[in-house]
């Protein structure tokens, strides 16, 4: 112990050492929920591959579909896996990790003991959010990683063919995949902040997770109504697929910049609300 303990606290107690990330990470990683979620994401590409192997060849339509494209190379397969999961599965995963933070502790009644330890409230929220972010990023990396492995094994290490018909060498293609995981990380921050806020205001983990997913789905539905025109730009999911621009040899950063800005705006507002609410909340769970 280098820093002296405060006069009013128990020996060895320092607020900055409470609920360290390693501790919270251990608490979460030992959960079946975490293990199963990450495991399923790692398994998803294999399931996709199985589905492709069993699927009958459809009637000749004269044009190539994205599913045809997915079977061209490992990188294409990984891109397909990202496309299929970005708008729902990954939203659910992020909502799960963040919506569970406070609400599950509340439902186990362990929240009050953590707060009475005392872990300062802002710190508790921050540490739990950081660990949820680490798990989310892990999920966002496991998916393309596993998809690349499965894809390489099943379809070889060929070039990436983008939906716009361009080809990218496998090396840069993997880099683009990483970048798209990075974009999704930033873009899903709005889901994270919303789930965190819901987790703070409700004691039911399912309510927090489901609420965040529901808002995402409503936003996606509204986004399909073209009559809304410019208003759709404000929907948090409007730029959810902007990372597809990364698949061109010349990257158009426009929509991705707008998407990150939109997501961070929502995340900042919702996250600030979560902190504000949690700092003032009477813990009755």
């Amino acid at each position, binding site marked *: 112990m280098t820093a002296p303990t405060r*006069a009013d606290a128990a020996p*060895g107690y320092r607020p900055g050492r409470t609920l360290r990330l390693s501790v919270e990470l251990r608490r979460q990683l030992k959960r079946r929920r975490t293990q199963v979620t990450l495991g399923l994401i790692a398994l998803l590409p294999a399931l996709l591959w199985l589905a492709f192997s069993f699927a009958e060849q459809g009637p000749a339509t004269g044009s190539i579909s*994205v599913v045809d494209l997915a079977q061209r190379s490992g990188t294409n397969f990984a891109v397909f896996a990202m496309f299929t999961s970005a708008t729902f599965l990954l939203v659910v995963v992020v909502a799960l990790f963040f919506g569970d933070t406070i609400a599950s502790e509340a439902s186990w009644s362990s929240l009050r003991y953590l707060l009475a330890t005392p872990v300062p409230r802002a710190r508790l929220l921050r540490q739990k959010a950081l660990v949820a972010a680490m798990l989310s990023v892990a999920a966002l990396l496991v998916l393309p990683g596993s998809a690349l492995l499965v894809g390489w094994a099943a379809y070889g290490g060929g070039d990436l063919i983008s939906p716009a018909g361009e080809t990218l060498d496998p090396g840069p293609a993997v880099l683009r995949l990483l970048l798209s995981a990075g974009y999704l990380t930033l873009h899903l921050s709005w889901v994270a902040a919303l789930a965190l806020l819901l987790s703070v205001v409700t004691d039911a983990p399912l309510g927090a997770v489901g609420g965040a997913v529901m808002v995402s789905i409503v936003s996606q539905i509204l986004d399909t109504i073209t009559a809304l025109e410019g208003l759709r730009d404000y929907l948090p999911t409007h730029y959810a697929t902007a990372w597809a621009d990364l698949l061109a040899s010349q990257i158009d950063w*426009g929509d991705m910049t707008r998407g990150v800005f939109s997501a961070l705006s929502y995340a900042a507002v919702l996250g600030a609300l979560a902190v504000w609410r949690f700092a003032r909340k009477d813990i009755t769970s």
Partner: protein
Amino acid sequence: MPPPRRPRRLTPGRPLAAILVLVLVGAATVAFLARDRSGPAEVPTQDLTLNVPAGPGQSGTVALDTTVYLPERTPAPAVLVAHGFGGSKASVDADARELADRGFVALAWSARGFGRSTGQIALNSPEHEVADASRLLDHLATRPEVSRDAPGDPRVGVTGGSYGGALSLMLAGYDRRVDAIAPVITWNDLGQALFPNNAVPNGVPEAGATPAATPFAPNGIFKRSWAGIFFSAGLAARPAVRGPSGIAPEAGSDGSGADAEAEDDAADAAADSRLLAIDPSRRDPAAPPPSVCGRFVAAVCAGYLEAATTGVLSPATADVLRRSSPVSVTDRITAPTLLVQGESDTLFGLDQADATARQIAAAGGTVDVVWFAGGHDGGAPGPVVRDRIGSWFDRYLGRPGVEPRPPGPAPAAGLTYAVQSGIRGESRNTPSVRSVTAEAYPGLPGAAPVARRDVALRGEPAEVLNPPGANPAAITSVPGVGGALGRLAGQLSAITAELPGQSAGFSTDPLPEQLLVAGSPRLRITVGRVPGQPSGPEAVLFGRIAEVTPDGRSTLLGGAVAPLRVAVPPGDRPAELTVALPAVVAPIEPGHRLVVTVATTDQSFQGADQPAVWRIGTAGPEPALAVPVVPGRNVTANTVPAGPASGIGLIVAGVLVAWLVARFTRRRPGPTVDGPAPQERLPLVIEGLRKSYPGGVVAVADVSFAMRPNQVLGLLGPNGAGKTTVLRMLMGLIRPSGGSIRVFGHPISPGAPVLSRIGSFVEGPGFLPHLSGLDNLRLYWAATGRPDADAHLDEALEIAGLGKAVHRRVRTYSQGMRQRLAIAQAMLGLPDLLVLDEPTNGLDPPQIHAMREVLRRYATGGRSVLVSSHLLAEVEQTCGDVVVMHHGRVVADGPVADIVAGGGKATFRVDDPTRAAEVLRGADGVSEVELDEQSVHADLNGMPRSEAVGRLVGAGVAVSAAGPRRRLEDAFLQLVGEDNTP
């Protein structure tokens, strides 16, 4: 034991609704993401009819129906917007509005013979339509809204599609006042467009160093389907062709919305024309009655009739068409020219724009070329291409607020082409498109000739039959339908293009890598006679190129065919020629093959009537397909937008500032404690504590009490007395509405460091069910961040007494086990103040007994224990002191014995209870005498117990024991009244 009256909590649905609203409101506040997606702006317009001379050798005038669109700021340069064949000024209304919205004065007019304009169609003849446009320039020069280069010389550009595009080029060739032009999907040589011949005879030098060049060989084959549509548009009042319908897909746009608008405009234009057709009063009385020639001037009509009946282009007709073609003036065009040509265009293909670009550049003009994913078979230019056209006029005309490009050496001609991948996206049905730009147009002066990649071809020579009358004929394209249907033509043709015995095919091997075809592929073939079979002096053949997938699906590139007229010398020697296949842009995927077929018939063209059989093979020892490629870089629609990018910076900076502010304003108490010295501070002092919830519910009304070191204090009260709320406030979970709590002299607030000296077990255990009991304790201690050695884990485990079960998951524990584990957790680190809420719930009697011992031993060495319970016996047996709470208030406070004795009741163990009762009843003030088997109880009302004993003994009753009546229940009921069941 949940408090019976909790504050009103949000139901799960309400925060959701609140947050949905919040999200939508938040959406509206992110204001500068907003982009204007509205349609053509409201611009002021002015309709007027201009009378122009009818033409050389003709008397009278022709009335041109015009509309002027005015921009916000004037004077501004003007742009003439010419319509396509069969259209009218109404069909370019949207384009004109867009240009006016951009800042130009736009002038749209109906060409003579179209719309409400009078006169006859002279097919862009220099003396008629081109002269008309010059008169429009005269008019513009007189308008104050139009900026001028010189008196009578307005600053003006010209644009238009198809017929209007040709007029742009022609006007630029005939009128030096034109400053810039942007012709769209138009012809270079109408004779070549309607009578193409893509055969380059052997020995004739290859003209095309440019990617899309076709030989423009003489003696072409009549493109009868398109010519018929073209001509009939001038016959009927209602146009049969109005240029492409719909918008071509392009990079960076989803194409929604604008499409519908364009369709509406086109429909309006059509309705307008129909109105003219049925309302005789609105027709030009001078117009001739319906005839074979319709509204065409005689020379044009005669030419068409001749061509349509003979299928041959006579020199006279060729001359008429040439005078109507930009090729006659391209060597004089100095106005900077942006050529926009469609990749889906079987009427005016890429080769037409290629020829125009070649001719203008050869004469030293400034030219730039855009190939977009549309055309007469595809769609009209989309917003990106239209913006490109607008920028062209910005650059060469300037406009208020935009300086034109200063004069200087012309920039090299560039080429931008759209690549349609043909891969269907997830949700969109339109193919994905990207845009590729080559800095230099290959083959133009100053640029290297186009690179061609040779791909080996396989295929045995085949004998093909030309059926008599060239019927049945292969159907490769459906001209004039436009839009999505036109784009389908390439796929449709795969089914109808191959008639048995009529074609010879040559295929490449599957391509090892993607090949982006950009231009006209070349192939050398031989055409020979078959002994014993009929054959004429020349063969009419049709070359096609298709992409074939591994599973046999075939797509005709560009939906186009290359007609060939080949003179075959008599005898056995075959003719050898180079075939310039249609100029296309197509990405060929790896593993796909390119297949060239040479067929004898095509529905769109006038085939050879005489039956014949030809032997067709590839020429040369190593037959190869020379595929033009134009390397370039992909163009992205835009760079990083400044607004959102700086917005991201602001958010990051804001979060950083908030974090720093929070860090430096963090409460730092410590030596600020007032009152007595640390060693004298009491473990717990509660003063005037109050908690009320919104809505008037008061959980704790007024609670004050204090604890001494080494004390075991009981907090006793019925359910709902407010005990748990007090404890929650003590733990910093709930903010008091009033009063204060001090622990060892330090005020309690959420997260106060002094909380680390309290060990608590309140309202049941709280464990992570997926972890073992041991892991729970370890991780809990780890979460405190305090040294492991301070935990005293072994002692705590001993108290929990779980044995081996400590390694099992907590979810498998019984309630008693959880209870004990929770008490053990509260004791981790041996806190100075231990707070236990109903600690003996779920414990069996021996465990309860042991627990009492533990607590008594714990409260030594300055440590204290606060036990809350609603069980009287519990408190009575465990605690030395008690605080009794009821309805949120302290109703009694003191040593248990005092509280118990406070009522003054006494119990005497006697040998004769009946006698003893009589004695006591006889004593003054003694009341409520009760008796049972061995004892008598009485309220002595102030009489000392010793005196009562003396009286009993004096009365001959043997007293074996005397003491206070040890039933806390009595005292408790007396304190809280009878209404303790809520």
